[in-house]
Structure formats: C-alpha cells, structure tokens
C-alpha cells in the first residue's frame, strides 16, 4: 500500500478518538517537553557557571617568581625574584595570545585618612588590571593611561577599606596617606567578596604601578605579572607562549630551569564545567525516564485499542486487508501519535524553558540537536512500543475477530 494511504488511514483512526489520542500523546508530550526543558535549564546553568568563572578570570594567566636553589636545596617559590616591569612590557609587546598584561607590585602599610587609620595591602597595577580581573569601580572612575605615565598619586579603594576609613562620607575626592605618601581617592572598586581561600579581596588599595614603584616599593622586582588570554581555549597556548617570552626576557636557554612560574585558573573552570555537564546529563536522564513512561503509555493504549477494535480488524481483513496492512496501520498509528506528541512536546519544552528563564532569570539555551534527538527518540518510542500491539492485531484470525463482541 502507498505510504500516503497508510498515513491517511492512521490519521482517520486517530481523529475518530480525539480525546483518547490526546491523552495517549500526553505522556510523550510531557516526556519530550521535560527533556527539552531540563536540558535547556542544564545548559543554561552551565553557561551561567562558566560565566561566573569567567568573571573570576578564567582566561587569566599568572606569572610569579620561581624558586631558586642553592647547592641543591630549594628555597621555595619566590625565593629568587627576577620579575621586572620590563618583563611585563615585553609580554605586552610580543604576546599574540594574551590580550592584555599588567604588572602587579604588592606592598602595603598603614593608611591614614577620613575617620582614622587602617592597614591594607597596596597593589601597583596598570590600567589593564580592570579588564584582567574584571573589576570595575562602583563609584568614581578607574585611573587612566595619563595617571600611569605621569605616576600620579591617585588610588582606588577596595570596598572594605572605603567602609573602614569613610563610613559616613563619599571617599571620592578625599585624601589618604599611605606610609607618608598622600593619594587622592578617585574611585571605589566593586565588591569582589572572598577568595576561595577566605581572603577578603575587597581589603586593598589599588594605584598606578609607576607611582607605587617610585614612591613606595622602591624595588626593581615585582610580585606578579597578570595576563589575559583571548579565550579560555587559548589559555594553554598562551601559557606556553608566555613561558617562551619570559625565558628569552631572562636570557635563559630552552634547557635552563625557569626562574618563574606560569599558572592559570582553568583547572577550577574544568571542574565546575564538568559538574554542570554531569548535572545536565542527570536532568536529561530523569526526563528521559518520563519519555520512556510515555512510551509505555502508548503501548498500553495501543494494546487496549487492538482489543477494542478487534471487530474493526476483522472487518478490514474480511474486505481484503493483508495481515501486513493491519500491522502497518497500527504501527503508523502509534508512530504518528508519538511523533505528534513529540512535536507538541517540543513546543511545550520551548514554552517551559522560556517560563523558567522568565521566572528565575536563569539563562536557558535550547540546542537544535536536543530537539532533533527528542523527536527522533519519540518516533523510536512509537515504533518500539507500537510493534507488539501491531503484531498482535495482525496475527488475529479474521473469523474470530469478526465474531468478537
């Protein structure tokens, strides 16, 4: 029989019992809808977590001084500091894979100003620090290129420092004195919160590295160089490149032990992304089970339908339907039911994930592949769970089927 004939017969049968067909499809509708919704939520959560890791600086490459050894006895990391501003400048000039680079000079001391005094670390950085650490100001403004070039005595306060020194007034425009050097406060940094290790990141003062070096540190060597790769994928290559540039900068041959360390944060990112991937799969598996239950619902109804329509099967056989025709009819019916349910379920999934996004503000993302897999799976459910009832129908004896009451 021609396929369009078969589909027409199946559609007529489905249309004859609209209510039941709807209820039968409901299992598949909910199953497919749940799969799409859950995967969308899972992928949304994944991209959200990835985003928050990006905020931490997942692209960040950290170069710190290496360990020196003397007579075979290591003195530990940082024991030999040969990091210099020049290294940072060379990296910024030559690196293809790092979008930005900043030196970080770490010092600190007693701060006077406003309501009293405080003790906090001071970071001398370049203006690119804002981008690398993704750390804008909550009020005022970041210092600019001019301030760095002219070594102006301007600074940004971490929110903790701002709160301690200026609890009741706007710190911007005020003056603080850090170890006898006066700084104009031009901005307050946004809250960063604690590090994984529990340190308060907001308890700091940030100033141009040129100023810090000239006025306070007075040293040639710097604590860190921070760089930012163009994308998380570029991080490993950027690290290799940074190593090579640093080796060259320090006049070391390839085989010589590096006197610096290059690290990144992507291990953390990998772990977190892995966790959300597992979560997405878990959600999809749970939703998949509901799809399976929907399939069993279809089988149940198809079996009932075969019993109930025994007489119809007898009539069809008497007027010339081959057993194969009857098998095909019931199989096509269950495939059409489950596929139709699948299509409605996709709509439900879109609606559901939109609703979740709307109510919770989570970003949800529906991958076209998910839709394809869900539709394919629902058709497979129709074939798988429709086959047995269809075979039962095709195996009926026309005489018995005709007499069936």
């Amino acid at each position, binding site marked *: *029989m021609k396929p369009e004939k078969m589909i027409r017969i199946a559609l007529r049968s489905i249309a004859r019992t609209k209510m039941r067909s709807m209820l039968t499809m409901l299992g598949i509708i909910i199953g497919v809808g749940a799969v799409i919704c859950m995967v969308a939520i899972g992928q949304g959560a994944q991209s959200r977590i990835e985003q928050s890791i990006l905020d931490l600086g997942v692209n960040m490459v950290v170069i710190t001084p290496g360990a020196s050894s003397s007579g075979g006895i290591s003195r530990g990391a940082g024991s030999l500091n040969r990091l210099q501003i020049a290294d940072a400048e060379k990296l910024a000039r030559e690196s293809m894979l790092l979008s930005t680079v900043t030196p970080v000079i770490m010092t600190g001391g007693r701060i006077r100003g406003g309501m009293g005094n405080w003790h906090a670390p001071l970071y001398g950085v370049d203006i690119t620090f804002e981008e690398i650490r993704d750390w804008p100001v909550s009020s005022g403004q970041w210092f600019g290129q001019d301030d760095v070039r002219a070594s102006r005595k301007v600074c940004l306060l971490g929110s903790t420092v701002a709160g301690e020194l200026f609890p009741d007034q706007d710190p911007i425009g005020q003056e603080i004195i850090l170890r006898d050097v006066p700084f104009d406060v031009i901005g307050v940094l946004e809250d960063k919160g604690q590090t994984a290790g529990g340190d308060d990141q907001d308890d700091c003062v940030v100033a141009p590295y040129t100023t810090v070096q000239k006025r306070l540190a007075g040293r040639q060597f710097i604590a860190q160089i921070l760089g930012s790769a163009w994308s998380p994928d570029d991080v490993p290559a950027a690290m290799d490149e940074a190593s090579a540039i640093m080796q060259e900068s320090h006049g070391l041959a390839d085989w010589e032990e590096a006197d610096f360390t290059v690290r990144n944060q992507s291990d953390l990112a990998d772990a977190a992304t892995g966790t959300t991937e597992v979560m997405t799969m878990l959600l999809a598996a749970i939703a998949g089970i509901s799809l399976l239950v929907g399939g069993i619902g279809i089988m149940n109804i198809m079996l009932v339908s075969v019993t109930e329509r025994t007489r119809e099967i007898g009539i069809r056989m*008497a007027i*010339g339907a*081959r057993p194969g025709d009857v098998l095909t009819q019931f199989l096509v019916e269950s495939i059409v039911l489950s596929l139709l349910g699948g299509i409605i379920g996709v709509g439900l999934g879109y609606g559901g994930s939109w609703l979740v996004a709307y109510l919770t503000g989570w970003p949800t993302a529906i991958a076209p592949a998910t839709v394809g897999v869900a539709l394919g799976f629902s058709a497979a459910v129709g074939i798988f769970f429709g086959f047995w009832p269809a075979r039962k129908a095709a195996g009926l004896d026309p*005489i018995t089927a005709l007499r069936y009451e």
Partner: protein
Amino acid sequence: MNANNAVISLANLRKTYAMGSNVVHALQDVDLTIKAGEMVAIMGASGSGKSTLMNIVGCLDRPTSGTYELNGERVESLSRNQLADLRNRHIGFVFQGFNLLARTSAQENVELPLLYDRSERQIDPAAAARRALQRVMLDDRREHQTSELSGGQQQRVAIARALVTEPSLLLADEPTGNLDTRTSIEVLALFQELNEQGLTVAMVTHENEISQYARRVVELRDGLIIRDEPVSNRRSARNDLSSMQAV
C-alpha cells in the same frame, strides 16, 4: 473463466476441527457449484455447517481437504496474503451485524475496500464509492456517520461497500437477521435487483421464508448437503413491498 461459467466450484470439501479430544466434522464431502448470475440461499440450522461453508467460500478459512475453485482459480492452499487479495478482488461481504466502522461517514466506509486494492485497476475511490451508494439509493446520505443511519440504511451502506470493488460474488451472512420484516424485504429487493443486473449472490440464512426470494436453495445438515433445488415459487420482493404498502 471456465467452461461452465462457475464462480464457485467445491469438490469433496471437508473441514474438521479438533475440539479437545473430539474431532468435529463441520463439513463432510461437500460438492457445490455456483454459476455466474445465480442467487443461492444456503440454509441450515445452527451446527449444520453453513457458517463453516460460508467462511471457506469467503476465503476466510481453508478446507481440511478437497478442492475449491474461485473463478477457476484454486484457492484451498493459498497464503493469508493471497486470500486477503482474493477477498478484496472477488468477494463482497454483507454481515448480519452490518459491521461498518463507527464514527465514519458512509462514503468512507464504502471507500474502505479500495484502500486495500492491489490490482492494476485504476479506480478513483471517491467516485467508485459514490456510484456504489447510488446503486443502493443512499447517495444523499454520503456524509452521514454510521450512528446517524437506520438499520436498513446501514445494511445498504454495507452492501454498497461490498459492491464497490465490483466483486464476482456477493456473500451475505444472515443479511436480514437484525432487521424488521419490511426492511428485510427492502434489502432482499435490492439483492434481487442486483442479481438481475448480473451479480452472483449467495446468502446464508436459517429462515425458510428468506430463501424463497433466491433462485436456488441449498440446505445443509450435519455437514452434508441434503437438498439442492431451484426455488419453485420464487417470491418477488418488489411485489411483496407494493402489496404491503396497499395494506
């Protein structure tokens, strides 16, 4: 078609069923020939074997032994699929309980056999169904659902469904069993009319009165043909209807 113009030709036909340890001989040694254009009533009490005979003639069942030729083609050893094609092509069934599809229009019910038509004939199902419904004078009820039709109308739709494939044989199983007297005679009038137009009709009945409208009566008892004779005083259903109207 063979020389003597036989539509149905049964020879030494036997059918036995195993009912537990008993063997039931539903048909023993039946010889029967039905020629084109005949109108035969197959009679018998229940248990006489007439249903078994009808099932075999209708290609729904296969004999245990013996030969069956339908339009000169041996059918006793055909496969299920081949039997299905034969039923579709050569036999129009009319049942006691009408056996129409529920929640389906008369038109669609009549089109149904053509959906399973595997012959090379190019038949437009819609047009053929309309013609068949015209022959049973129901073309004004085409779009009515089964449940919206009276018993007599439903049986006429069933007859139209049997006619739509232009079969060699119209096989009716107690066609008037569920109908009142007047509607029964209307259906019989339709059979007589179709028979006069050349259709071969075989109807199974247990009512002697109904058999009087056929041209020939075959009676079975205990799986044997005990009577096979022409109807001497054949009744005309049309005349009976007009006399009923007179009363």
